[in-house]
């Protein structure tokens, strides 16, 4: 697991909506096989950072590199090609509501490959089985629960066997058991497919359970104030802002310790 090849590098990234700067001077590297956590308080720009990395919003300044590939400096066609190897689970699942689960999962396959209908069907059944939704092929997103929607979204994200999976708040709106199951699923996917995983979350349990690298965004100073293994951050970084966040509001050395 310790092959430290950089997969995504964010270099001097500044994000802005018009004149309003959300975050500036972001610099971090996501290595192959990492489960990389983007954390920070609500509304600090975590999801915006994600949108920059998946091509939905262009940076005000700076670069995002996938290996040697400069994502935002490339031609749109190359960028689309790059997105083939990217899977995304959106915060709300974002399943296309007018399509069944099977059609949802098969659309990326139809878009990027020339597989026969039978092959597509096999792939779809497999991906749905992987997330525990075998047999739900013909259900519409509105007919299944929120947790199942999330898992179906994961099946769609994994449709193309991507090199990297992005998760936007995977545990939002899930009960603790479902959230834990989703975390386990993320770990299993990483271990079996060797996928690099990027997770936007502020769920502490998930952060410590699955993350092995992270970046911490601070809304006050509008930039990142730490990066590294979240468990190490908890033990070694004594910045009060980070300690307060990682200890759920308790200051370092409070009764919150184990």
């Amino acid at each position, binding site marked *: 697991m310790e092959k430290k090849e950089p997969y995504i590098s964010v270099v001097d990234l500044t994000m802005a909506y018009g004149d309003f700067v959300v975050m500036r001077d972001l610099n971090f590297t996501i290595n192959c096989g990492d489960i990389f956590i983007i954390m920070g308080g609500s509304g600090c720009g975590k999801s915006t950072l994600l949108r920059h990395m998946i091509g939905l919003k262009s940076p005000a300044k700076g670069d995002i590199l996938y290996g040697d590939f400069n994502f935002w400096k490339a031609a749109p066609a190359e960028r689309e090609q790059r*997105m083939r190897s990217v899977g995304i689970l959106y915060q*709300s699942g974002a399943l296309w509501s007018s399509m069944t689960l099977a059609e949802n999962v098969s659309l990326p396959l139809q*878009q990027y490959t020339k597989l026969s209908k039978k092959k597509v069907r096999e792939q779809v059944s497999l991906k749905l089985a992987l997330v525990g939704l075998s047999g739900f092929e013909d259900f519409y997103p509105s007919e299944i629960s929120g947790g199942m929607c999330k898992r179906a979204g994961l099946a769609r994200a994994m449709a193309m066997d991507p090199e990297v999976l992005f998760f936007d708040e995977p545990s939002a709106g899930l009960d603790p058991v479902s959230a834990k199951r989703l975390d386990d699923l993320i770990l299993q996917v990483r271990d079996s497919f060797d996928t690099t995983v990027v997770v936007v979350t502020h769920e502490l349990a998930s952060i410590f359970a699955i993350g092995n690298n992270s970046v911490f965004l601070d809304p006050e100073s509008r930039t990142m104030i730490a990066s590294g293994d979240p468990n190490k951050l908890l033990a070694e970084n004594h910045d009060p802002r980070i300690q307060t966040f990682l200890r759920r509001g308790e200051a370092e050395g409070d009764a919150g310790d184990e």
Partner: protein
Amino acid sequence: MSDAAVYFSLTSDEILSVHLKGTWQMETDVPSAQSVMEQLKQHPSIKRIVFDATALGAWDSNILIYFLEVSKAAAKLDVAVQKDGLPAGVRQLIDLATAVPKKEDAKQSVSREGFFARVGSEVTDFAKSTGDLVTFIGAAFEAFVRMVTGRARFRASDMGLFLQEAGAQAVPIVSLISFLIGLILAFVGVLQLSMFGAEVYVADLVGIAMVREMGAIMTGIIMAGRTGAAYAAQLGTMQVNEEIDALETLAIPPMEFLVLPRMVALAVMMPFLVLYANLMGILGGALVAVGMYNINILVYLNRTKDAIGLNDLFIGLFMSLVFGILVALSGCLRGMQCGRSASAVGDAATSAVVTGIVAIIIATALITVVCSVLGI
């Protein structure tokens, strides 16, 4: 039944004791903090206010408001306020309420812009939205060209569904409205015509009005309210659910996948609906003529046939095609522009209907003027 009361005593020259008594609750009348102010004015020597709550009955957040008002007034006069005498619960809540200082810049700045600034920003907004509209029309046309050349990506099953929604499912309402429009035209017309004994010409009136203008306009307005609003709401909801983002990251252009089948479906179905609406309108007129003025049905139909020229029919059908495109454009445009909240979806639907109807009326005016100039 309010027994809330407050009275004051001076413990020394510098200390004012505020004695609270009775029930201090939200719906009971309680004394205002004004009386404390008056005390402070009467005795400028006071440096400290203390509270005595031994006679205080039930209380709720109302007493906090009283305390906060007193301390605000006291702060202005540099008088200290001690909350020791208050019940422990009240003290805790006061700490909570005063823990985070009021953030002065948190409020949205409701800066009053000057008249010219507002006019200016309206104008630039309008210019921008016109630009958006033109871009959208361009993108839609591009998608259409891709469809014609067989390169557009959309699902045939979606297209079928939209054809059904915009076509067959609109038939009942279109029947009702156009039948009634024909009936109304005949009623109004026949009254005037009967003054000249020319009742039979009501067939000309209803026929030409329906085929040339009214059929297309009424169907266009129905479809703006029905299908245009539905398109805006569907696309808006997809925007809220990040479904459109999900398409974009798959490199599937929403313009082809979502907008194109909707626009094509409505543009294809509108002329059929209008043809059908024309027929229903003529039938409505016939009902009045036959039922109330005893005009022979065959005479009525013959007069209708003679009155309507092929150019009338084509103008009507041409308008219907234009209206179909306009309604679909405004519905899809507003849906794609939708913000990310529930109320934004409602705004998008409203705005789609308004834009659609305004566009229909303007287009009718233009087409009618052009036709009369050209003499067709």
